[in-house]
C-alpha cells in the first residue's frame, strides 16, 4: 500500500511519566516529615489541605475530565461527615469502618443525583446540583433526632484499635487516604473510564458512536467523585470535631470548584496545588489588616487572567511539557 505522507519530526511528543513519579514521591516524603517542623495550627492547616485535596481529586474527575459541573459537593462532603460521625458516635462502630461505610452511603446518594443530571448541561446542571445541595443540607438540618439539627454535633476524638487518634495521627490518616486517592485517580484518568470521560466532555455524539454508554459513565463519574468527597468529609468531621449543617453550603461548593480551576482542570497535580492555594493563601494574607478578602480576590482574578489553565497547567507549559 502507499505509505502515508511523511511525518518526520513531529513536535510535542509526550515524555514518559518518570518525572511525575519522582515529583509525587518527593511530595509524599516531604508531607511525611512535615509534622516535625509544624506547630499545632500549621498541622491543622496541612491536614485541612490534604482533606480538601481529596475532594479536589474527586471533583476534578467529574468536572475536569467528564465536564460535569457540580454545586452539591459541599453537601456530599457534609453527608460524608455526618454519616461517619453518626456511625462512629451513635452506632459505636470503629472509626476506620464507619469512614468507608459512610462514604459508600454518600456514593449512593451521589449516583442518585446523577440520574436527573444526565439530561442537563452547564448552568442548568449547576442549578440542579445546587438544588440537591440545598435539599441535602436542609435534610440534615431538619432531621434533628438523628443529626442534632442546627445545634450541630460535637465529636470525641476517634480511636483506632483502642488508641486515641491525636492531631498527628489524623494527619497521617488523611495523608494515607490522599495517597490512595492519588493512586486511584491516576489509574482512572489513564484507564478506560478516564479516556471515555474525556471524549464525552469533547463530544457526546462521538463517544456514543464508539459504543460508549454515556449515562453509565456519567453516573460512574458522579459516584466516584461522591466517594472521594465523602471520605474527605469523614476525615474533616474529626479534624474540626464539631460539625454543623450551616458549614456545608453553596459557598463551600464554589470553593471546591475554584480549587480545581485554580490548580488546573483535568489534571491530577492541579487538584493538590489548588487545595494548597485555597488553604494557604488566605492564611498568608491574615496579617494584612482589613483586607484579606480583597487580596485573595485579587489573587484569584489574577491567577485566572494570567493563567487560565490553572497553576499546574501553567507550570507544565513553563517546563515545556504537553
Amino acid at each position: 500500500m502507499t505509505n502515508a505522507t511523511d511525518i518526520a519530526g513531529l513536535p510535542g511528543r509526550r515524555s514518559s511519566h518518570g518525572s511525575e513519579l519522582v515529583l509525587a514521591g518527593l511530595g509524599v516524603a516531604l508531607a511525611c516529615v512535615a509534622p516535625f517542623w509544624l506547630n499545632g495550627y500549621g498541622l491543622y492547616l496541612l491536614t485541612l489541605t490534604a482533606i480538601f485535596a481529596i475532594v479536589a481529586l474527586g471533583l476534578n474527575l467529574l468536572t475536569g475530565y467528564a465536564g460535569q459541573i457540580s454545586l452539591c459537593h459541599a453537601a456530599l462532603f457534609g453527608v460524608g461527615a455526618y454519616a461517619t460521625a453518626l456511625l462512629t458516635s451513635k452506632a459505636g462502630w470503629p472509626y476506620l469502618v464507619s469512614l468507608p461505610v459512610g462514604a459508600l452511603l454518600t456514593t449512593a446518594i451521589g449516583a442518585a443525583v446523577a440520574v436527573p443530571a444526565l439530561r442537563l448541561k452547564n448552568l442548568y446542571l449547576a442549578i440542579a446540583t445546587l438544588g440537591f445541595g440545598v435539599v441535602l443540607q436542609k435534610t440534615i438540618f431538619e432531621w434533628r433526632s438523628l443529626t442534632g439539627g442546627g445545634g450541630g454535633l460535637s465529636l470525641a476524638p476517634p480511636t483506632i484499635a483502642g488508641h486515641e487518634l491525636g492531631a498527628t495521627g489524623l494527619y497521617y490518616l488523611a495523608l494515607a487516604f490522599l495517597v490512595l486517592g492519588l493512586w486511584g485517580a491516576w489509574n482512572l484518568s489513564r484507564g478506560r473510564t478516564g479516556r471515555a470521560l474525556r471524549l464525552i466532555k469533547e463530544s457526546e455524539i462521538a463517544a456514543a458512536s464508539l459504543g460508549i454508554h454515556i449515562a453509565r459513565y456519567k453516573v460512574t463519574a458522579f459516584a466516584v467523585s461522591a466517594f472521594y468527597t465523602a471520605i474527605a468529609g469523614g476525615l474533616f468531621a474529626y479534624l474540626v470535631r464539631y460539625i454543623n449543617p450551616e458549614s456545608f453550603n453553596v459557598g463551600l461548593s464554589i470553593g471546591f470548584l475554584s480549587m480545581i480551576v485554580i490548580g488546573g482542570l483535568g489534571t491530577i497535580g492541579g487538584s493538590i496545588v489548588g487545595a494548597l492555594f485555597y488553604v494557604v493563601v488566605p492564611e498568608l494574607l491574615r496579617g494584612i489588616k482589613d483586607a484579606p478578602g480583597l487580596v485573595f480576590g485579587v489573587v484569584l482574578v489574577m491567577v485566572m487572567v494570567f493563567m487560565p489553565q490553572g497553576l499546574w497547567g501553567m507550570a507544565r507549559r513553563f517546563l515545556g511539557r504537553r
Partner: protein
Amino acid sequence: MGRLAIENVSVDFGGVHALKDVSFAFESGSIVGLIGPNGAGKSTLLNCISGITRPTAGRVRLDEAVLSERNASSVAGLGIGRVFQHPELVLDLSVRENLMIACHRSLGYGLVSELLMVPSVWRREREAAGRVADVLRRLGIADSADAEVRNLPYGHRKLIDLGRALLMDIGFLLLDEPIAGLNDPEIAHLTELLFELRREFGFGILVVEHNMPFVSRLCERLVVLDLGQLIADGRPADVLGDARVIASYLGEAADA
C-alpha cells in the same frame, strides 16, 4: 455477511420533511455513495442509521435487529462505525490514547480493578495497545503514535477517526464527507486504503461525499437524495447521467 436496510424512513423536524419515505438496502462488502445537493437529508440519514436521530416513520434494520429502536451507543455496539465530517478527538491526548478510547468495549474490566490497577488490567491494556499499534501501522501513521493530537495536521486527524471505527469490529462503516479538507495525495491514499480495508475486513461502506471523481472511483453504487426524497439509485455512470440528478445539482449550481 450482513445486510443494512433503510425501510420507508421519514424524518420531520417541526413540520419540515428532512427525509420522505426513503428505502434502500446494501450488503456488507459493498461500497455505496450517498449524494445529493446541500440540505438533501444525507447527514440526517446517517444520523438515523447511527441512532442519533429517531425516524418519524419507517425503520432501519441490520439483519434482524431494528437499529432505529436503539440509542447511538447500542447501535455502535452492533457493529455500525461512524466517521464524522469533523473528527471529534481529545486534543491533549496522544494518538494512541485517542484510539484506545475505541477499545473500551473490548477492554471490559470493572471500575474497582481500574482504580487499583490490578495485573489483569495491565494485561488487557497491553493487548489493546497492541491492536492499536496494528491499526496505526495499517493507516500508515505509526510514527505519530505518541504525538499529541493537537499537533497533527487535519488529514491525520481524519485517519485517527477512521482508525477508531476499525478498532470496533464493525460490519458497516458510515463516512460523512471523508475527503473534505484533504489534499490530493491524501485523497489518493484514503481511496486506496478504503479499498484495502474493505477487502481485509469485509465491511460495507456508506459514504456521503460531494467530490464526484472520488465518489465515482470509490463506489460501485450511488444513491441520490434531493429534498429528502430518493431520486436515483444505481451504478455511478447511469446515475450521474440521470436527468433528474443533473437537474437537482444544476438547481443548486444556479442558486449558488
